[in-house]
């Protein structure tokens, strides 16, 4: 990547004269921007807001579960809390999280493009997201959804608060935002790569965005039509999934999980992309098995469509199908295993430093490992018939989604923060938060595995007293976790003003995004980009720039 002028490292860090944040200031310039970097900010603000709503709901839930009786909130409120929590966290936070913020910000820069292929559709995607979020929040005021994030029929269509359906409409709308972003990712990756940026020179993060876009495009429409059918069934009172009129409730489950299992990988693959970047950068070593990493991500994209039935092992699907879905589930898990081994091998004989992003990266590996291994236990039909619907499942997916994906998101936030804002975050606070989150997380969800083993069903507002001790432990952990998440919120805002000014490449990393100023100029690069190297060539980097001396 030699044709890019390397910014002078010797000069003390300074802000570039003009960058994407200061070329205009008005509110209008933000709301009508087509700059992918600014759109990333728009998403970032909205997503943070939604995450806090979802997190607040979780906190109230945890407090309610302190005692066996339902003494803090009523049964109806509890149902609303976990439904809201699930819906917001899945569709309004985690699915768009990494793609719409970091993907938007970085994908064009990483491939040496000036912008996305369809910048206006990119902006539209944000407006559609906001519309969906608006409808959802409207639903919260109109009575709140209370059928869980899974909208199982006939409960959602005939037996709950009509606001459930409004929430479904919100999710339906936000699906189009996902689709638009995904179209942009794929077309941009195909058509806008800089000269010399061949497919196998793409950073793994770009590959992860590509793989996840495939998933989004093929899965989301099925969710859209499913929710549409639920809505129509509710409003017109017609039968589609209604057993009383010949419909089949399991049909809904098939269609929902045909989307939602791929959706869990939609949440995971971007995290894998991020972690791949973190691990190589802070090990200063080429990723081990780059091609295999790419193929395993693409394999996950394809194969994750074959396994949805593992959510229905005891729901009444045929035993034969259950077995097929179980075996497919195991097959899809192989690529995940490969990735874990490859990350470990990448670190081997590296030159490892422990900056906050790396701490997040490593805790991702550990927590995803635990979540994945318990996923295997659930994928065993004979064990799922015991564990299905218990807190074991809750713990499984929080380990992957919170311990894995959200942790990777935090890692990405710290890693690219200097690039995005031009300022460094305070390192000591960064590490403290990473550790607080890790500890708090395990304290929250570790006990839930035991609760599941003990048989406590999920979505229980009151529970038999035998489960109280473990629930108390979990709630205590949740408090630590909440503090852990509140910390970055505070010090990152602080750093916007008082943080040290960041050099263009604080981590001595190799990606194209580090070859331009921090924050980047409006069109990303001052000069045309030309790529000549394989990715992550740290040997060459060190030869050219001298060894990296740690963060400035």
């Amino acid at each position, binding site marked *: 990547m030699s044709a890019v002028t390397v910014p002078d490292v010797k000069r003390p860090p300074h802000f570039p004269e003009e960058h994407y944040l200061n070329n205009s200031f008005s509110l209008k310039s933000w709301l009508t921007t087509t700059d992918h970097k600014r759109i990333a900010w728009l998403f970032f603000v909205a997503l943070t807001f939604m995450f806090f709503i979802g997190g607040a709901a979780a906190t109230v839930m945890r407090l309610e579960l302190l005692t066996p009786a339902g003494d803090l909130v009523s049964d109806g409120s509890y149902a609303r809390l976990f439904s809201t929590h699930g819906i917001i966290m899945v569709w309004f936070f985690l699915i768009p999280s990494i793609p719409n913020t970091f993907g938007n910000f970085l994908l*064009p820069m990483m491939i040496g*493009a*000036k*912008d*996305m*292929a*369809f*910048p206006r559709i990119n902006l539209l995607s944000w407006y559609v997201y906001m519309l969906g979020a608006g409808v959802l929040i409207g639903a919260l005021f109109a009575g709140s959804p209370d059928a869980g994030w899974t909208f199982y029929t006939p409960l959602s269509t005939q037996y709950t608060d009509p606001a459930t359906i409004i929430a479904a409409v919100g999710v339906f709308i936000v699906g189009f935002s996902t*689709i638009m972003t*995904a*179209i*942009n990712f*794929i*077309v941009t990756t*195909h*058509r*806008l790569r800089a000269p010399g940026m061949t497919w196998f020179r793409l950073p793994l993060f770009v590959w992860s965005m590509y793989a996840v876009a495939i998933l989004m*495009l*093929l*899965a*989301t*429409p*099925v969710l*859209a*039509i*499913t929710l549409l*059918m639920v809505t*129509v069934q509710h409003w*017109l*009172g*017609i*039968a*589609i999934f209604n057993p009383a*009129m*010949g*419909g*089949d409730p399991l*049909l809904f489950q*098939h*269609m929902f999980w045909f989307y939602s299992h791929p959706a869990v990988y939609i949440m995971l693959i971007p995290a894998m992309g991020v972690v791949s970047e973190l691990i190589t950068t802070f090990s200063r070593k080429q990723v081990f098995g780059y091609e295999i990493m790419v193929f395993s991500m693409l394999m996950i994209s394809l194969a994750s469509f074959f396994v949805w039935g593992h959510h229905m092992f005891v729901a009444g699907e045929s035993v034969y199908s259950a077995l097929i879905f179980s075996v497919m589930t195991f097959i899809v898990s192989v690529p995940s295993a490969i990735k874990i081994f490859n990350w470990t091998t990448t670190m081997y004989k590296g030159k490892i430093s422990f900056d906050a992003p790396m701490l997040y990266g490593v805790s991702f590996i550990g927590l995803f490992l635990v979540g994945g291994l318990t996923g295997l236990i659930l994928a065993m039909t004979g064990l799922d018939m015991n564990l299905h619907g218990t807190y074991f499942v809750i713990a499984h997916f929080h380990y992957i989604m919170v311990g894995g994906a959200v942790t990777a998101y935090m890692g990405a936030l710290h890693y690219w923060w200097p690039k995005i804002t031009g300022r460094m975050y305070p390192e000591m606070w960064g590490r403290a938060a990473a550790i607080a989150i890790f500890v708090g997380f395990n304290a929250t969800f570790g006990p839930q595995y035991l609760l599941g083993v003990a048989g406590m069903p999920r979505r229980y507002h009151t529970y038999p007293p035998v489960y109280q001790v473990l629930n108390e432990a979990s709630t205590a952990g949740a408090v630590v976790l909440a503090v852990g998440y509140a910390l970055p919120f505070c010090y990152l805002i602080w750093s916007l003003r008082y943080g040290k000014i960041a050099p263009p490449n604080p981590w001595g990393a190799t990606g194209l995004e580090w070859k331009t100023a921090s924050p980047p100029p409006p*069109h990303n690069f001052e000069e045309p980009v030309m790529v000549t190297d394989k990715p992550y060539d740290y040997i060459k980097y060190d030869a050219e720039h001298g060894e990296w001396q740690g963060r400035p």
Partner: protein
Amino acid sequence: MNAKSDQIKEQFETLEQQKSADRLGMWIFLATETMLFGGLFFAYTASHTLHPHVFSEASHELEWNLEFGNTAVLLTSGFTMALAEIAVSLKRRGLTTLLLLTTIFLGIWFLVVKGVEYVDDFQNGIVPFIAGGYFYTGPSPEIAKLFFNFYFALTGLHAFHMSIGVLLLFIMTTLAWRWRDPDKLTRQMTIVGLYWAFIDVAWMVIYTTLYLLQQ
């Protein structure tokens, strides 16, 4: 970048690149549309396996003959649209406008006939979700409702797409009439043409399975 013509948007280097990006984008969008229709179709098929007899009896209520002509109309409109694309690429303004108008005409014809069929359906009492619209007397009228719901969902979704298509064609016609920028128009027409043809594809499948298979 000064040599770049103003036809090319900022993020692209060449016109060819931009064109191919647009087309790829459209095709990807159509793939998602396939999944959208396909999902509904799947729901229909699955319900069909549960009540095959009721479904095939109920499908006899549909007016295959009306839609037979209609399908031919739709195929023809796809044809005229494809011709319009050629015409615009040959820079023949009048012909383009004429072909576009023909396409619109055929599209609206299709929608009108569809509307006529809906009215007939109402009179024949196979509209389960309107008060007074349902007095079907075939086997298991309660379950047959399921079939009619799917019928309206599928054709309704299709008609919705048609209407958007007609709207787009109107815009294209205006642009063709003004003839400001034939090159740009050629590119836009390719995109709209893809969408219009996709509507044909969806209809072929709907007609075959809903109307023909059970006869």
